[in-house]
């Protein structure tokens, strides 16, 4: 009886294979099915369209301007992506930016060397992240609540520490701080070997590129990335298979806060001053960038490339609207519409197109 049954099961498998002919997804298919790819296409189209329409948009100067503007958001979107992959959210990044800027600014005001000020700023950011991570990972509180609390705490501390003053009288290291924030590479001078069409990318941009490459490496080639995705997919499964779930979740929040601190220090250098309102509302823009880039708020999906593309996309829309002379009050409406649109395009409703599935739901077939 045994061999006979085995045979029927095998025959059954053969039938399934013959009928469905499902092939494993090729690389091209996977790229075509990914949200970051389509957002990149949309970004390209938008850039080409705007460059044709508005001569001042397609300039080298504007390119270096745009890349500098979105870099801090891109950097923070990297951290946010890691948190969102685990199925959490970090609402505190904007406030952590403000606090880090003030702490570093205070140390500069007290005439400490720039590296002491930067180290204190980074440590403040990491400490905030550690508090978030501790309560989310080890105390098992909802990330929304914990980071909402941190949003309030960090902003309040920033106001208290700054004495509600703008900090700009930095000590002897002020020029170094400014040089870091305003550095450009490659530098275009008259008659050099670098072709003129290459933009002078800001230090912000290069920091973002390096961090994105690093995170891409971590997510794709290290067990850490696998574990992160597994936690977002099925936290219980990850725990049962021996993944150090709590420790990795803790690291995610620390990394997110770290990215906020890096972004804050770069902006501090660029502006040459620190205000306690720095980063206000940025958390929402960072989350928007992350989601546009294909991270799933339910957890289990997200890429470093997507985070950068999402941030770039938001900035290009903003810049394009500005260049097109549209009232800046309209920006919010456009950005909001694109958030919904991007997530809509990324949805997959059981093989059907999103539009067909929605029509089906609103007007069930029997009523049509």
């Amino acid at each position, binding site marked *: 009886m*045994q061999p006979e*049954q*085995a045979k029927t*099961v*095998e025959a*059954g*498998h053969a039938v*399934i*294979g013959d009928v469905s002919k499902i092939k*494993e*997804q090729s690389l091209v298919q996977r790229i075509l099915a990914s949200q970051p790819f389509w957002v990149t296409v949309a970004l390209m189209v938008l850039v080409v369209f705007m460059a044709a329409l508005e001569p001042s948009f397609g300039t080298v100067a504007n390119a270096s301007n745009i890349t500098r503007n979105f870099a801090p958001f891109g950097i923070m979107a990297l951290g946010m992506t890691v948190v969102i992959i685990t199925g959490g959210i970090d609402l505190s990044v904007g406030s952590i930016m403000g606090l880090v800027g003030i702490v570093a600014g205070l140390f500069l005001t007290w005439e400490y060397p720039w590296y002491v000020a930067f180290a204190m700023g980074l440590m403040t950011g990491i400490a905030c992240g550690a508090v978030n991570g501790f309560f989310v990972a080890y105390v098992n509180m909802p990330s929304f609540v914990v980071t909402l609390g941190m949003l309030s705490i960090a902003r309040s501390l920033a106001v208290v520490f700054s004495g509600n003053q703008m900090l700009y009288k930095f000590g002897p290291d002020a020029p170094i701080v400014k040089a870091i924030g305003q550095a450009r590479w490659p530098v275009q001078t008259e008659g050099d070997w670098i072709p003129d069409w290459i933009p002078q990318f800001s230090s912000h941009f290069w920091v973002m590129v390096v961090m994105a490459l690093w995170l891409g490496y971590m997510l794709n*080639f*290290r*067990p850490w990335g*696998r*574990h992160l*995705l*597994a936690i*977002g*997919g*099925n936290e*219980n*499964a*990850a725990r*049962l*298979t*021996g*993944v150090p779930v709590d420790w990795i979740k803790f690291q995610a929040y620390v990394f997110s806060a770290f990215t906020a601190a890096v972004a804050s220090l770069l902006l501090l250098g660029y502006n040459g001053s620190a205000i306690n309102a720095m980063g206000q509302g940025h958390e929402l823009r960072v989350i928007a960038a992350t989601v546009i880039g294909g991270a799933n708020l339910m957890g*289990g*999906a997200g890429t470093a490339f997507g985070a950068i593309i999402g941030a770039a996309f938001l900035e290009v829309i903003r810049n394009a609207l500005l260049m097109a002379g549209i009232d800046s009050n309209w920006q919010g409406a456009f950005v909001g519409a694109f958030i919904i649109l991007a997530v809509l395009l990324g949805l997959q409703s059981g093989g059907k197109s999103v539009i067909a599935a929605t029509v089906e739901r609103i007007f069930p077939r029997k009523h049509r």
Partner: protein
Amino acid sequence: MPLLEVRNASKSFGAIRALNGVSFAIEPGEVIGLMGDNGAGKSTMVKLIAGNFPPTEGEVVVNGEVCHFHKPIEARAKGIEVVYQDLAIADNLTAAQNVFLGREITKGFWPFKVLHKQAMIDKSAELFAELKSETRPRDLVRKMSGGQRQAVAIARTRLSQARLVLMDEPTAAISVRQVAEVLELIRRLKAQGVAVILISHRMPDVFAVCDRIIVLRRGTKVADKHTNQTSPEEITGLITGAILAA
């Protein structure tokens, strides 16, 4: 020498006595059906063997060695693996990624230790072929049938060279065709000398694959019979208490 022996094991949670002096042994390549009504102590027995907690009295003996597990990882080190009811699989990962979750193969040296993806894909393909399952290593688990998911969960136990696999309700909530697939997987494990403890409420499945059936009622073992010496009617009677003991 039996692979696993439970000697006179009792487990109390405060005033509640969940297991009361249960003894049994299991040989390599044996499939045992563990049956009993809700609250009979099946889960406690599984957790005891899987290493979630040690017994209050009595002992668990693996390969002649008395083991007092406090964590599942200790039991795993002794070759005892559990296939959980919800399968403990991450939907957003591929079959190969799930098989190797938590024990990824890496190559290179620190700090450039990277995932050896091809090795993991090849090894998973090998395991699926061994289980005669039509599961492809690169497919997302999200798109798989219940039977294929079971294959992924079972391949994981094969990877660690487990000698005893505990399966908690593997055939609950899957289609008839997939049940046949899962039972076939259990037979494959048996053919490779792996012992299986199958916890199930489904009488036909238990009778289809098990060599012996152990029935628990209110924390006590009331029967330990060879499958061919009993009948579903008798087992039902033992579970409900209509037949006191056999």
